[in-house]
């Protein structure tokens, strides 16, 4: 055989191998291939507040109540519930036919244990549990929540849409110490987690739960019927955005949860891909002060920053496209029941007023202390925020030293109470999922309980009183009035500054349909059309 013939045979052999590899595998089932915003490394949604784990939670577990598209709390696992006349006893009855993935029935005991574990860990759960006198099992399908005093938190907390979500787990699992990760991943949700196929850094797999009985209502937000229309969902770990987009364009994946805004034009050009906005509430950018140290220990100086900022500058710098951001002159997200402009008159948050800011700094006797501003430089949705903040603060007369770092370093550093000159900090910018900040109790940055507050440690008795009043109030009208008082108080004693709402879109192949609009990415109702 000549060298040329040998080469030809070798090339032919390689071609056959490559063609054989290119042939699509016979698929007896529909698989939705998804790239999420992050890899799934932890699988206990009570142990961590990480959003990717919360999203996994919605696959595997179900909730007693859930928030619908209008922001109202609806029964989910609960069939019916009854509130006593004195509003001190909630009697909850579970739906018929609820089963764990191992085939055993869901019981009241399971739910009570689950509420206790969540209530020990989640901040809103802790608040709720401070009102709870007893969780009483009546029978396998009914249990009672007996309160010490009335509160409007019960349904809102049990139907809380975001981290930590009160997911129901079997009693034996829910009895795990809340500070220890669970090791059994059995839920009663619409999907079953395939632990044997979970390869962190590669993929996580769920299959349809054939025993799941969806509610009869149409899906609405996180409530309603969770009808699964694919056999299998795979979350593929593709950390590089560009590669994930290329994979979507090439049809190797079907769904990308959070493509970066600057790559939307690439996706819009492809006829086989579409961008769909699924989270109507979006997210809120936020500037957080550290109130422990000079000069931000003085509310007047913090007010000066508030007057110097305008939301549009931040939103333009990061998101750019007006279709995906909204200036929102409200502490609580626009489009939610507690949206209000009370106390924000005079263009606060929407127009920079450097004269007012300078005047406040003068009144406060600002001595030119350099502000240590932490800048997260590795996340596209945060990267441009700090430079804008620095520029606006400098225009108001502040001296600012911007420290650039990756987000994980920032997360570690923000927990430090040391003076800014000794490794501490004065301020940073972040983003909240709107579903996490819907009211004064949920919104973590409003917690002003000094040492018990989140990093930044604001300490304000008046704010805490208002938050407490809100927790106790059961009338929605009065709750709104309290929320407005909280907003007014925020302008007097700023704990943080809301910097506008922004929205992302998921990118999907054209044949992927039925996605549910909700503040969390969920996969029930999603189907792949042939």
């Amino acid at each position, binding site marked *: 055989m000549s060298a040329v013939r040998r080469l030809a045979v070798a090339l032919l052999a390689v071609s056959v191998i490559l063609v054989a590899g*290119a042939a699509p595998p016979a698929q007896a089932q529909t698989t939705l291939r998804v790239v999420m915003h992050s890899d799934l*490394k932890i699988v206990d949604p009570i142990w*961590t507040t*990480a959003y990717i784990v919360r999203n996994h939670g919605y696959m595997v577990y179900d909730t007693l109540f859930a928030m619908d598209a209008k922001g109202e709390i609806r029964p989910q696992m609960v069939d019916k519930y009854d509130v006593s006349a004195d509003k001190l006893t909630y009697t909850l009855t579970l739906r018929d036919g609820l089963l764990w993935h191992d085939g055993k029935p869901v019981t009241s005991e399971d739910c009570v244990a689950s509420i206790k574990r969540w209530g020990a860990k989640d901040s809103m759960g802790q608040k709720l549990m401070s009102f709870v006198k007893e969780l009483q099992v009546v029978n396998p399908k009914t249990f009672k929540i007996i309160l010490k005093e009335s509160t409007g938190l019960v349904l809102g907390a049990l139907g809380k849409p975001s981290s930590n979500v009160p997911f129901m787990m079997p009693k034996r699992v829910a009895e795990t110490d809340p500070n*220890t990760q669970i090791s059994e991943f059995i839920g009663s949700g619409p999907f079953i987690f395939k632990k044997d196929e979970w390869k962190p*850094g590669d993929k996580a797999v769920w299959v349809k739960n054939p025993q799941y009985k969806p509610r009869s209502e149409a899906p609405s937000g996180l409530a309603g019927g969770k009808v699964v229309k694919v056999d299998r969902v795979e979350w593929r770990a593709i*950390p590089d955005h560009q590669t994930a987009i290329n994979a979507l364009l090439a049809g190797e994946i079907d769904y990308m949860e959070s493509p970066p805004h600057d790559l939307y034009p690439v996706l819009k050009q492809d006829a086989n891909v579409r961008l769909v906005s699924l989270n109507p509430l979006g997210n809120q950018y936020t500037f957080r002060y550290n109130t422990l140290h000079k000069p931000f220990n003085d509310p007047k100086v913090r007010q000066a920053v508030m007057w110097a900022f305008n939301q549009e500058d931040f939103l333009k710098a990061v998101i750019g496209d007006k279709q995906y951001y909204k200036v929102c002159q409200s502490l609580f997200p626009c489009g939610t029941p507690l949206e209000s402009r009370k106390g924000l008159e005079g263009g606060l948050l929407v127009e920079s007023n450097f004269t007012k800011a300078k005047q406040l700094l003068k009144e406060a006797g600002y001595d030119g202390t350099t502000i240590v501003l932490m800048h997260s430089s590795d996340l596209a949705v945060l990267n441009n925020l700090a430079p804008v903040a620095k520029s606006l603060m400098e225009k108001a007369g502040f001296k600012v030293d911007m420290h650039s770092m990756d987000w994980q370093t920032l997360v*570690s550093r923000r*927990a430090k109470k040391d003076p800014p000159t000794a490794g501490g900090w004065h301020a940073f910018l972040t983003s909240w999922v709107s579903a996490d900040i819907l009211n004064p109790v949920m919104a973590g940055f409003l917690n002003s309980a000094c040492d018990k507050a989140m990093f930044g440690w604001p300490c304000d008795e008046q704010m805490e009183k208002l938050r407490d009043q809100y927790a106790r109030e059961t009338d929605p009208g009065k709750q709104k009035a309290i929320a407005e008082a909280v907003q007014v108080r925020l302008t007097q004693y700023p704990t943080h500054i809301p910097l506008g709402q922004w929205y992302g879109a998921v990118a999907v192949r054209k044949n992927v349909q039925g996605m549910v609009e909700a503040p969390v990415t969920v996969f029930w109702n999603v189907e792949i059309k042939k």
Partner: protein
Amino acid sequence: MLPYIGRRLLATIPVMAVVAVFVFLLLRLTAGDPAAIIAGDNATARDVAQIREKLGLDQPIVQQFIIWIGKTLRGDLGESFFFKKTVTELILGRVEPTLALATCTLLLAVTMAVPLGVTAAYKRGSWIDRFVMGLSVLGFSVPVFVIGYALMYLFAIHFAWLPVQGYQRIGDGFGGFIQRLVLPSFTLAIIYVALIARITRASVLEVLGADHVRTARAKGLADLPVLLRHVLRNAAVPIVTVIGLGVALLIGGVVVTESVFAIPGLGRLTVDAVLARDYPTVQAVVLLFSGVYVLINLLVDLTYTFLDPRIRY
């Protein structure tokens, strides 16, 4: 030779000890707290403190080091902070893709670079020589990820001949396995080809001018046998050396290439572990890479004795 190998293996112990201390301290000195990362964005200081305690990060650094090194010496690399898996399990699950990528890259690089280098030397000053050296400069200058994206666009998006990303285990089908390795291996091989081709050219050029080559030609031997029998064999020592030393380049390249092509190998594990400050995993992977590097250098030294009979240990 056995005593030499024994001595070299013994010498790896202090090297690995230094690496262990260095990587342990470096991780602790780097900003970032794994407990804060695990706890998530909405966690309170109390949550973070509880997780730190659970992970043993509240103990003094010396104590943490003694516990870790003690376990490592007993063959226990510990448990990952994030994945509910032992580090050994994690590493074993990631070895195959990295090994496959490295082997493919090495084969591709050597089979491309050595003929290119020899041809460039043989045709010194010609357009082929200039072309090869030009390519070599380009290969060195363009970052691996740029090459990766360019190849991905051309062959996976534009022509749709190859997959964009991912890895298929060899057990799940050889065709898919090879198909998914072509682009990443080629991407990673380019810098390696540049390095080996340059060294091959220089080495072959040196030998081409030697007396024994002139004698072989004078005897009437054809060019190809002269190149293969008398030139390449004598030029092999520096080439093998650079292939061995280049493994460090390969390890660095694997980290980037695996990220660009979403290959779940050791490189990706390293990146993920570093970003998440997963100390036990980073420590184990760095120790593993260091051990592999030391052993490859030993292997290269031993190869010399086969290539050059004058070398004896």
